[in-house]
């Protein structure tokens, strides 16, 4: 059965005057359609200038993260039937807007790059694969599912205030490598996140956990990192 929804979209068009405005579009959508389908319908039939990022359309690539009805979500994963009649759509908070719902993500990606997001193991690799028990792999399983959509970091009040804060996504990425038994750069990574703008800025607000499209409990991982840092502090860096 189809229902009418009103999409109230915050526009930002650099070439027009005034650059920012709110547009409203009434769209008919059925019960399994999502906010992204609505946006596409509007772009195709109403206003071709409406700009937003999209790719996989089923919640695995992380392109279409935006603020929907006051909360960061993936547009392709938010079913319209779960939303109110009037759906307010804005770009991700706290990042410079390029156009309409597209934000400049480079600051977010730089945060991830700061925690050395790659396996560092300079020992000569063995003949076959490196052995890792299922339990060890399970420890990093949840932090692996992150698709880097940016919803968590841009939903964190600390990141809004302090752009130097590494942010939940970067800290989760640090967790993924610190707790990977094959990685050999644990000290370096801990030093990066042990800084004034690292794990100590997290005040267990849980906004990141509220918005993560992959339902990752990010704060739990940051708390684990804090306990690890405290333990390492007492032991003087010895495992």
């Amino acid at each position: 059965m189809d229902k009418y929804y009103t999409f109230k979209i915050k526009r930002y068009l650099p070439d027009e005057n005034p650059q920012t405005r709110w547009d409203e579009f009434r769209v008919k959508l059925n019960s399994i359609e999502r906010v992204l389908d609505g946006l596409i319908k509007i772009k195709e039939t109403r206003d071709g200038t409406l700009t937003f990022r999209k790719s996989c359309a089923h919640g695995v690539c992380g392109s279409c993260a935006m603020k929907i009805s006051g909360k960061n979500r993936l547009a392709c994963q938010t079913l319209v039937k779960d939303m109110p009649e009037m759906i307010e759509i804005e770009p991700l908070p706290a990042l410079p807007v390029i156009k309409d719902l597209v934000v400049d993500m480079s600051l977010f990606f730089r945060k991830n790059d700061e925690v050395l997001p790659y396996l560092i193991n300079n020992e000569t690799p063995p003949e076959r694969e490196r052995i890792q028990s299922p339990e060890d792999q399970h420890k990093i399983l949840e932090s692996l599912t992150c698709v880097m959509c940016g919803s968590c970091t841009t939903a964190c009040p600390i990141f809004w205030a302090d752009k130097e804060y590494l942010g939940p996504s970067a800290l989760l990425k640090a967790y993924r490598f610190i707790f990977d038994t094959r990685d050999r750069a644990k000290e370096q990574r801990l030093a990066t996140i042990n800084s004034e703008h690292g794990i100590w800025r997290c005040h267990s607000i849980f906004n990141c956990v509220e918005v993560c499209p992959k339902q990752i409990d990010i704060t739990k991982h940051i708390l684990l990192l804090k306990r690890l840092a405290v333990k390492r502090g007492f032991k003087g860096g010895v495992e």
Partner: protein
Amino acid sequence: MEIIKHYFDVVIIGSGLAGCRSAIECSSHGTVGVLSKLYPTRSHSTAAQGGIGAALGNEEEDSPEWHTYDTVKGSDFLGDQDAIEIMCYDAILTIIELEHMGVPFSRTPEGRIAQRRFGGHTKDFGKTPVRRACYSADRTGHAVLFALYEQCQLKGVKFFQEFQVLDIVIENNAVQGVIAVNIKDGSLHVFESKAIVVATGGYGKIFKVTSNAYATTGECLSMLLRQGLPLEDMEFFQFHPTGLYGLGILITEGARGEGGILLNGKGERFMERYAPIIKDLAPRDMVSRAILNEIREGRGIDGKDYVYLDLRHVNKKIIEERLPEITTFCKIYMGIDPSEAPIPVIPTAHYAMGGILTDNDGRVLRDVDGSVVEGLYAAGESACVSVHGANRLGCNSLLDTVVFGKRAGKTAISQLKDVSKGKIKKERISFIVESINTIKESKGKETVASVRRDLQTSMMDKCSVFRKEKELMMLLEELQTLKERYKEIYIKDKSNIFNTELLEAIELGHMITLAEVIASSALQRTESRGAHYREDYPERDDTNWLKHTFAFQGEKGIYFKYKPVKLTRFKPEERKY
């Protein structure tokens, strides 16, 4: 319009698995620039769920020879057997390398890479299903892509994110470089290079119901076609049997690998009739045809056009541990829990077997006689070494991207010294800028969306699993009218900044060209083989169709050349499962 110039020894287009893997290979011996329409980890490779096949034999006895046989049989004997052998024998080393790069595979109790059963993969030449798919829960593509992209970052590869390639410049049979536009601000960039690796993936978006992402439009293939290069085996397009009904989101074959079965309206496990031995784990073309056959004969679920994939009997822990992603898909999009309710599925357009003609080392060939385009390489779904032939086995695609991504990168580097630096002439750039402005300023009344929707619908109706001559002829006419309508497209968004409407228009032009190649290739192949099933020629005709088709773009339309399949070890036999 000021133009920003760059120079790289190797320019790689596409940052999915093939692109990143060849970038890693090239980064050690030369400067590498990777262009991508999306941020690399958003490439469609991240949506691959099932696994990556390799005869590691971690869970049960296995051998690359059996893997070769399965792939050859799965390809309905159209795959070049020397290339398939290279892939299956290289697989073991490549997967181990991936693990060393940090890919977090799921593990066996002994700590080795875990493997599960997968469609078409069997033990000792087709006897029983074998555990050959190395997986990382049901997010294998995501796990491998992140590891490869991270290794690229470690090696300092330069990425140009959100750059749309407008033209691959080839002059006097040698690669000069690439013209691209930075989507963020519309600035024009020219990348001159010695070598170009095309790794842009498939073109599933040509079909209406597809599991492919919006970025898979295959415009680089049509750019090469327009410069006289052939596209091989374009009529073979795989339809994955289990896509969520109405959404096209994929339910990995791994679900059937873990014990899921397909049920029709009468609750029968109908696959027993179509593939008595390995039933639901038969290759994808067979399962897709079986499902659509059941629906056409009125045995769909309460008469409607879908069947059930039933996982209720699979023990809950396995579903949670090994299939978490598809569980969330079913819960979020259909509101059902796979361990309690059956999942409504239909075949969806999934993988392109055809693509740019390349040899076993990733070099792009100009013609059937094997003459090479200097400095041009291709890898992954966009290339057609033809290891997949007429139908790809599950988890051979991730393997293909990684094995041939590495080989393409290695060959590109080894030939760097004897290739001269590319030089892109002014006229070529202004020609491109001209063509964009004509699209931008055209005063027509058509919209990108309407032309695209008609293209996708007609391709889905007339050129999907079941094909007939009459329908294909009608399709070709429709494509001609679509070409005319394309000239009348009106773009509302005139700005330079992030103009997605203009990009979609450019992509649409290339999609129409590709659609025409697919339709005419399907029309001229008068037999049924693998994913290409002709209702008017239902039999496989090895005597005169055991050959690859090469589509060329001539003035008067598409013309074809052929080359026999390289048979080494396995003679074509009747394909029973």
